[in-house]
């Protein structure tokens, strides 16, 4: 089998379009994961047992079921409850929700890592709860977990091809479609692999940079 350069050139624009969808889904899903994860973590710390135990079991449940099942649920089952979402939106919500249970763990660990003395200094200064969190605890906790959070961005990017199962025309889905039409899979699938490597490498470099920047005050 020969590598066909002309064919590669022809399919590249479509593949890049697919990549755009992949990146969009990843970034949007990641944004949801970052915010929602923090919400879970803070809710788990509320004194209300009902709230924190509910959140605990819900996140535990989401974390221990496969992302693919969740995607199917959101895309195929939710419409029976009257919630119909487009494939991309469903995919983004699925990724964000699933990964929010991981980021929640990361935040939790980061907060636990903030020395007790910081909380005590806040009490001694009489800072209100909200200020203690916003000005002292969260900035320190998040700084500690930037590297771990960054790694989840890359992990999520690599999980994004699952979205093809709910008809999102992301990178791999596009490649598959092209291959199915032309019956030539070598070029599209190889290019997908290369594009994934390229984006992963670039993001790793960015994450390392971020890490360095956040390593010291």
């Amino acid at each position, binding site marked *: 089998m020969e590598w066909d350069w002309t064919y590669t050139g022809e399919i590249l624009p479509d593949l890049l379009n697919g990549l755009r969808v992949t990146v969009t889904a990843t970034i949007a899903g990641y944004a949801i994961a970052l915010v929602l994860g923090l919400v879970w973590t803070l809710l788990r710390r509320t004194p209300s047992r009902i709230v924190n135990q509910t959140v605990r079991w819900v996140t535990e449940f989401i974390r221990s079921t496969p992302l693919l099942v969740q995607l199917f649920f959101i895309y195929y089952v939710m419409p029976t409850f009257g919630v119909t979402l487009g494939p991309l939106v469903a995919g983004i919500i699925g990724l964000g929700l699933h990964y929010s249970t991981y980021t929640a763990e990361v935040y939790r660990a980061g907060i636990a890592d903030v020395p007790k*003395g910081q909380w005590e200094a806040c009490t001694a200064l009489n800072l209100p709860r909200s200020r203690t969190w916003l000005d002292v605890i969260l900035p320190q906790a998040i700084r500690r977990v930037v590297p771990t959070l960054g790694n989840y961005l890359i992990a999520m990017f690599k999980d994004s091809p699952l979205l093809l199962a709910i008809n999102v025309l992301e990178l791999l889905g596009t490649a598959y479609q092209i291959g199915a039409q032309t019956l030539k899979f070598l070029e599209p699938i190889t290019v997908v692999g290369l594009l994934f490597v390229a984006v992963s490498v670039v993001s790793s470099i960015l994450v390392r940079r971020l890490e360095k920047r956040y390593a010291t005050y």
Partner: protein
Amino acid sequence: MPPTEPTDTPSPSKAGDAVPRVSDAPGIRFEKVVKRFGSNVVLRELDFTVAPGERVTLIGPSGSGKTTILRLLMTLEKLDDGVIWIGDRPLWHQDKGDGKLVPAGQKHLHEMRKQVGMVFQQFNLFPNMNVRRNLTEGPVRVLGLSKDEANARAQELLELVGLSDKIDDHPARLSGGQQQRVAIARALAMRPKVLLLDEVTSALDPELVVGVQDLLRDIARQTDVTLLCVTHEMHFARDISDRVLMFDQGQIVEEGPPEQIFGSPSEQRTRDFLQAVLAT
């Protein structure tokens, strides 16, 4: 002979001074205070009083409950029983009007804490903020000062502690002694009426201890706060305090002016303790 001009740096008041210190700071009273950690009863119906503006040093062997006393006053530990009075108000209780005391809510604690400040052994500065922000955070967020007012106060205090040039640095760039000076300034920025110092020099390199002690001596001289200080530095305790309380197992073994406690203690446990401290 013409009357001599009063010097503008009054000598530190000592217990031996004829005139008691006049202060609008509140006194403190522990009334049958009980504190347990699990089954370990650290304070067993402890009673003692600190006069308004008085400077008291707590000494005693490790584990005798000195830190616990300060932490109760800063509301960092919960009181198990008894009453702690700051001025004429109970710290941990609210008077429901009929003279009955009930456990206080957050609002009352917040109100009471305004009078109290604490400096920690490990400084506990906020590493994510520069020195300026460390000093202005409380005044702006708690006291409601404007940014400018808080800044002016921060600058003034940094001058007092001799660190004006560090205002834009983060704590990590300062030495231990400098960090502790900033922590002292941060506590003072809240204008507390009761100041708690828990072994504030014991985490410092030996050569930095004297500087911080001198600073605290100056502060004790210039303000009229009620001061509770835990220290193993007997010279410092002698200089700074009106009265020394010797604790053992959560009880006061002996108390008196520093000259007496350090010079001629009457209790064997005090003598043993002082000997042990001097030996190190």
